[in-house]
């Protein structure tokens, strides 16, 4: 019994003997929690595609920021808003529908980022931005993740009720004298900052997973928004830890493994959630039918 406990403890502590694993663990934990909290609003507003778009569109901003030595966050926010603005312009001033406008704008900006990377001489490999470089996160990068994560979380917690109102009923927000457009813009800004946090962990390509899966998973588990805000980060952080350890022992790509763990968690909840899971609702329907038949008999 005690040997089993020691073995488990060893399995958990061994990787942490390496400084880079400690940094990796902290980075994924912070990124997964921040993304998960934000994702609760994104999935309810219906901004999943927008999240994907912004996460990709920040790439040229981050590269340019690298070139001129500005903070990544600044470049990311500028290009995040640029993307959203361009999407709006294309949608409103042509016959192209919104989903196509999103697809056109973010892929073009992402491509611009790829081209900029290819012509930018650099010591650090900018390709890491695309696929993530969890095991190579430096202390300064981790510090940036901490600061941005704290800023995003603070704003989300402080204005939580306003964002929920915005997600649920913008017209009412307007009717009582709030400024829904401003709230939406703040949320988009937070989305761009969060993308910077998450791309350190899993890279631009997989950021959208961290921005959607936790919120969607929590949404299947509860009818209370307050509980979503707890469940999403708990699920997401657990997946981050499990994914990172799995990648260490299986020698797989850490970012990819973390997202796979989240996808697995979603699948389990999708099937088994008592309230909104596939099996749960089937069983409930079956029970109702049986009860009806018995009542009819």
């Amino acid at each position, binding site marked *: 019994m005690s040997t089993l406990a020691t073995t488990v403890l060893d399995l958990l502590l061994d990787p942490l003997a390496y400084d880079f694993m400690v940094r990796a663990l902290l980075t994924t934990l912070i990124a997964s929690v921040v993304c998960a909290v934000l994702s609760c609003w994104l999935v309810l507003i219906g901004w999943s595609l927008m999240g994907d778009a912004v996460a990709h569109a920040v790439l040229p901003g981050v590269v340019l920021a690298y070139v001129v030595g500005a903070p990544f966050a600044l470049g990311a926010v500028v290009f995040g808003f640029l993307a959203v603005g361009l999407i709006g312009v294309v949608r409103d001033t042509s016959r192209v529908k919104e989903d196509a406008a999103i697809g056109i704008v973010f892929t073009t900006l992402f491509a611009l980022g790829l081209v900029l990377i290819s012509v930018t001489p650099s010591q650090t490999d900018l390709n890491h931005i695309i696929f993530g470089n969890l095991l190579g996160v430096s202390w300064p990068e981790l510090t940036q993740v901490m600061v941005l994560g704290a800023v995003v979380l603070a704003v989300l917690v402080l204005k939580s009720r306003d964002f929920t109102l915005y997600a649920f009923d913008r017209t009412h927000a307007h*009717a009582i004298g709030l400024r829904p457009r401003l709230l939406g813009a703040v949320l988009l800004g937070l989305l761009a900052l969060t993308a910077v946090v998450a791309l350190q962990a899993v890279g631009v390509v997989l950021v959208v997973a961290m921005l959607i899966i936790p919120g969607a998973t929590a949404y299947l588990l509860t009818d209370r928004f307050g509980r979503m805000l707890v469940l999403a980060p708990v699920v997401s952080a657990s997946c981050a830890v499990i994914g990172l350890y799995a990648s260490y022992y299986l020698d797989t790509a850490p970012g990819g493994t973390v997202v796979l763990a989240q996808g697995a968690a979603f699948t389990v909840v999708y099937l088994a959630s008592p309230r909104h899971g596939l099996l749960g609702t089937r069983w409930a329907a079956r029970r109702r039918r049986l009860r009806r038949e018995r009542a009819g008999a």
Partner: protein
Amino acid sequence: MATAPAPAVDVREVTVHYGEVLALDRASLRVEPGRVCGLIGMNGSGKSTLFKTIMGLVAPEHGTVAVDGGTSARARRAGAVAYVPQSEEVDWSFPLTVRDVVMMGRYGHLGLTRRPRRGDHEAVDAALERVGVAPLASRQIGRLSGGQRKRAFVARGIAQGARVLLLDEPFAGVDRDSEATMVRLLRELAAEGAGIVVSTHDLHALPELADEAALLMRRVLLHGPTAQVLRPENLAMAFGLGLDGRAER
């Protein structure tokens, strides 16, 4: 020296386009406090657009809008206007309880983080009680019947302390019993001084509900006492052939 109270809603000669589509064409509507006005018109006649104009969501190209005696913006900041949306505009699977939704009526009165105080909880309790959904307060908002949903949104307006109530199609998908409850509730609120505008294309609740009615077809064709507006020859103007009292078909 008593001055007459300002109109709850005073829309004058308002014109609104969506791109090429002319939605409102010099529409005018004035409703006094304490009155219920039925806004009658076919689908696409501009009812929702008129509400959006009153709330300042749509800026008219022409004409003026006054609400509760001031600009629409002032009325909104004062929490004077409440809007009960059409059912299709609401995400009924949103993870909020009935109480959460009604509490949103208080947000304009709350501080930076909108943390409710005791008085706000009391206002919400009273509003829930008033519309008769208090026992259902901790249900998810979608787990109510059509009529209960509408009343929950009216409760939000009551908790807000609104003096002007705009209800867009509140009788769509609502059974007769709930409709009667809603009519009683709105009459009470009007008796306490609220100015109420109710859009509908279903006419049979109107004689009991509305003091006055307005026929909308991009313009307000006719505005007067309900019984007069509902005369078949007048309805024919707005509906073409809606002589059986139904707007559709």
